């Protein structure tokens, strides 16, 4: 076979393969053609040279050769696929909040607090965003996954630690005002400490005792 024909075919093989192709794979494929290692390497070099000024380059990675977008085009290609600024649903925010403040937490536990099922899409989105990850599987029927937040979550929110998040006790105080506004502390004049105590008793998901 002529070397030019061989070059065309190798080019098309590397382009069409979803994974990098090794020299060994190519040599095995051309076993009938008596393609020496040297001439194969020559062909590869030739291909590399002929793509030097093009939008893609033939590069060697650990498992073989593949084409990839030229260095100076990466930014353009990245911009061509803009990640739409996503608007997050209330359900997603609630799920995320629970994972942050109650991690490690299972889906069932999230659902128990929210009082409604958590759609698989939400978990999937959060996992894909790499904001949460599966830390392990709980030793309970069905071996449910246990979720926690990731460094990526901190990074994408410019945080170094979760401690930088607004503290919950700040909110609790805020809620006193809210309660009053809502008329909760009017007629009944419940002692707020009494409320807290009641809540602790009735709170099966309460984990405060670890503090």
């Amino acid at each position: 076979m002529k070397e030019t024909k061989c070059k065309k075919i190798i080019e098309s093989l590397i382009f069409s393969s979803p994974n990098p192709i090794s020299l060994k794979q190519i040599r095995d494929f051309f076993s009938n053609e008596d393609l020496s290692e040297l001439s194969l390497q020559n062909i590869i070099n030739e291909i590399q040279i002929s793509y030097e000024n093009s939008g893609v380059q033939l590069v060697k990675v650990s498992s073989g050769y593949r084409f990839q977008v030229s260095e100076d085009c990466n930014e353009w290609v990245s911009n061509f696929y803009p990640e739409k600024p996503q608007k997050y649903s209330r359900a997603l925010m609630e799920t995320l909040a629970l994972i942050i403040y109650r991690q490690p937490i299972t889906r069932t536990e999230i659902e128990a607090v929210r009082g409604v099922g958590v759609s698989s899409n939400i978990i999937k989105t959060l996992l894909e965003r790499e904001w949460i990850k599966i830390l392990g599987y709980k030793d309970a029927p069905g071996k449910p996954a246990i979720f926690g937040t990731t460094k990526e979550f901190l990074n994408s929110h410019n945080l170094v630690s979760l401690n930088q998040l607004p503290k919950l006790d700040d909110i609790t105080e805020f809620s006193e005002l809210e309660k009053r506004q809502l008329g909760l502390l009017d007629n009944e004049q419940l002692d707020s400490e009494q409320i807290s105590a009641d809540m602790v008793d009735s709170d099966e998901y309460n984990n405060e005792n670890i503090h």
Partner: protein
Amino acid sequence: MDTKSEGFKDLKNISVPLAYVKGEPYLTAPKDLYLPPDALEVVLESFEGPLDLLLYLIKSQNFDILELPVAKITDQYIQYIELMQELKLELAAEYMLMAATLAEIKSKFLLPQKNEGSDEEDDPRAELIRRLQEYERFKKASVRLDDLKRVDRDFYLPSKVTYSKIKTEEKKEAVDLEKLVIIFHELMEQTKILKPHDIKKDYLSVREKMTLILNSINKENFVDFKTLLDLNEGKYGLIVSFLAILELIKLSLIDCAQAKQFSTIYVKLK
């Protein structure tokens, strides 16, 4: 008449001889249609339905609706149906319907015509032919369609060439942290599990530590409990780590093992 078929013998049993209604009543042999039962399976695999089978019989087997005794075609279809009930139940009804249609055509044909110029619209044969012709058009089209060059069979595309993502506006997608906290608070309100007021400021650190610990251990290997403690974190940090480990044990997320008293404590993911 030694070449006459079985069908012909059967025809004799029918009160109205076909000879009257057709010029050449014995030209085709209905026994062509008679497929041995063990061939039925092949037939079912090679035909897409009653229309397809009928087309085949008409085109290749010289199957003649007129010459076929109703009893015979019905027998044959019932044979199909019985077999289909074993193989592909959902096909039975359609073949049954075709059997009934054929029987209807045959019976109409056998009955004396009342009016000479009967309404063609009502002729079940015309409808059957229309359907056969229509089906044949698409059958042919589907063959040509299959001959078209098709991706990943006749031609190939390069795989998507990879590029390195250059993140530009990552922050845009972040959630509003203030809102997140408010949402969590509202959730707690809803479920009446509001924190007591004496909540410590380090609320999150134990939780965060629990996650960090879970991340740093695996199911396979025990690690020295001490490696999970970072002395640089100071007394406060150590307490947080210790509390996190205790909590993980309580939630039975990790296994803890110690050979004897005061010896090294090992932990691993449960």
